[in-house]
């Protein structure tokens, strides 16, 4: 199986602070990492490769320092990396077109794996958009994947129920973070990752990707969360009744 994994470099969202006066996120000095669920996608790719053999290529659209993050994925078990520089103005539409062009340039593939969404923006659009542009079947929110010779069976997590789907290749899947536990690379794998290739393709290399963004981001601001600070100090029974009433009023309970 030849597998392509799409991985995004994101800021470590747990480290973001919001500027109290401007409400803007402070991004300077925040460490970068691979979006967590994309690591689940790679882990699943490695598991498939362990079973069937083949090759794993990871594609990232990102800033030049994303190369270091790609090395982490190569250490985990990917065979090759592709880095496409992030255009200054890019939205999901642009990124999906770049990814689609890169996939076409790679040519031969059986499975494309993505995280269900990135941990920074969490739009969940990239997988579906990419499958649409490539005109191949897609299975989103995969929580289980079974690979057979001619078909792939996957269980989709739809919250309160799961749906099992069978498809032929090629196919794009987006995985949930529950699907597996991404492995940590050993020291030896980290060292050997330095010898695995990372191809840097320019936007010009992907000529068909001459697209302009449809969405313009005007501003990004933190949403202040105000607590109500209501304290119930009567005896327990009365406090519980009042608490339940308040929760009902707030629309939390019905």
């Amino acid at each position: 199986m030849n597998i392509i994994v799409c991985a995004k470099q994101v800021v470590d969202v747990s480290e973001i602070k919001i500027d109290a006066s401007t409400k803007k996120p402070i991004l300077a000095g925040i460490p970068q990492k691979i979006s967590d669920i994309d690591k689940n996608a790679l882990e699943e790719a490695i598991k498939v490769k362990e079973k069937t053999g083949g090759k794993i290529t990871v594609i990232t659209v990102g800033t030049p320092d994303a190369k270091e993050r790609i090395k982490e994925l190569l250490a985990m078990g990917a065979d090759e990396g592709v880095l496409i520089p992030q255009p200054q103005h890019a939205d999901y539409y642009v990124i999906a077109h770049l990814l689609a062009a890169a996939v076409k340039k790679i040519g031969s593939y059986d499975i494309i794996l993505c995280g269900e969404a990135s941990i920074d923006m969490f739009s969940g659009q990239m997988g579906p958009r990419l499958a649409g542009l490539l005109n191949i079947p897609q299975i989103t929110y995969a929580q289980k994947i079974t690979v057979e010779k001619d078909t792939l069976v996957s269980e989709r997590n739809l919250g309160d129920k799961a749906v099992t789907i069978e498809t032929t290749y090629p196919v794009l899947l987006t995985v949930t973070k529950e699907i597996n536990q991404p492995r940590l690379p050993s020291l030896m794998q980290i060292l050997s990752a330095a010898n695995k290739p990372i191809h840097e393709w320019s936007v010009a290399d992907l000529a068909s990707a001459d697209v302009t963004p449809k969405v313009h981001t005007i501003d990004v601001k933190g949403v202040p969360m105000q607590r109500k600070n209501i304290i119930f100090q009567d005896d327990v029974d009365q406090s519980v009744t009042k608490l339940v009433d308040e929760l009902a009023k707030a629309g939390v309970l019905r």
Partner: protein
Amino acid sequence: MKLELNEQQKMIRNMVREFAEKEIAPIAAELDKKGEYPTKTLEKMAKLGLLGIIIPTEYGGAGLDVVTYATVIEEISRKCASTGVITSVHNSLVAWPIMKYGTEEQKKKYLPRLATGEKIGAFAGTEPNAGSDLGGMQTTAVLKGNKYVINGDKTFITSGPKAGILIVFAVTDKSAASKGISAFIVENTMKGFKVGSIFDKMGINANLVSELIFEDMEVPKENLLGKEGDGFKIALSTLDGGRIGIAAQAVGIAQAALDESITYAKQREQFGKPIAKFQAIQWMIADMATRIQAARFLVYNAAFVKDKGERFSKEAAMAKLYASETAMDAVIKAVQIHGGYGYTKEYTVERLFRDAKITEIYEGTSEVQRMVIAANLLG
């Protein structure tokens, strides 16, 4: 000059940090409470190559530099000081002297077993009457035919009850004083090897520390490390390297104390606001962070000098002295910031407080470090 880890070192540090958060942090308090050796953790660490960090690749290790090694020990110790010291002793006090002084046969026989974690290493120098004064040891080794027969008692041996491969020091020529000490590679399966009592310690309780008793222990002649009489030199140079590991361990403990203090100070409210808003707390946090960063740079400096192949005895002593005293300072402040809660076993800082003290004592007390530094400066 660049005071920064390179990308590969950062990647390794991040891997170990993630491993420590996922695999070590959840069980550290429990192992401390039960006095249980982290056997399963060590097995997982072996799979990641962390038991053979500095062992050359031809012997199954990762062949990495000392700076990387120090960052690994710091990250492990940040979540469990016991696992940190076991890893440090295994790498720098056992693998390193075999790498440096071992014959090709010894390297081929023992280094792969240490790198894969098949055997854990221990360093048996200290005796009931020979601590800082290592030259005063009384354990003897007498060559009989093709075997050395070793008799004596060792004490305070990290991993003593669990180790499979040990570096043991014994007197082969009493008349030559410290130049009559020799080093041996000993296996715990050798006839006459016995584990004595296990110490009930103040801290690092997941690290089992014991006495070792050698009663006519038979060690093959080919297990002599270096030449007869090289033992004291081997011990001192090995401990120089070990000190970098202990210094890194101390930085890890101190960093954990700071991490816990920051988290607690932000959420603990008194007088209607988080205690982090009080200058008294802010100054303690600022002082802790500043000393920790200084200690970390001293550790990197000692490791850097060792990596260059230069003499690093003074640098290692400085790093160990300053980092261990920083760890003590940090845990005292951390418990103070936590107030009464910090004095209970419910909070991590209580364990850190007990763990930190030993870093000022083992592998050379702070007083010995000052002696080493002064001797380097004054001749």
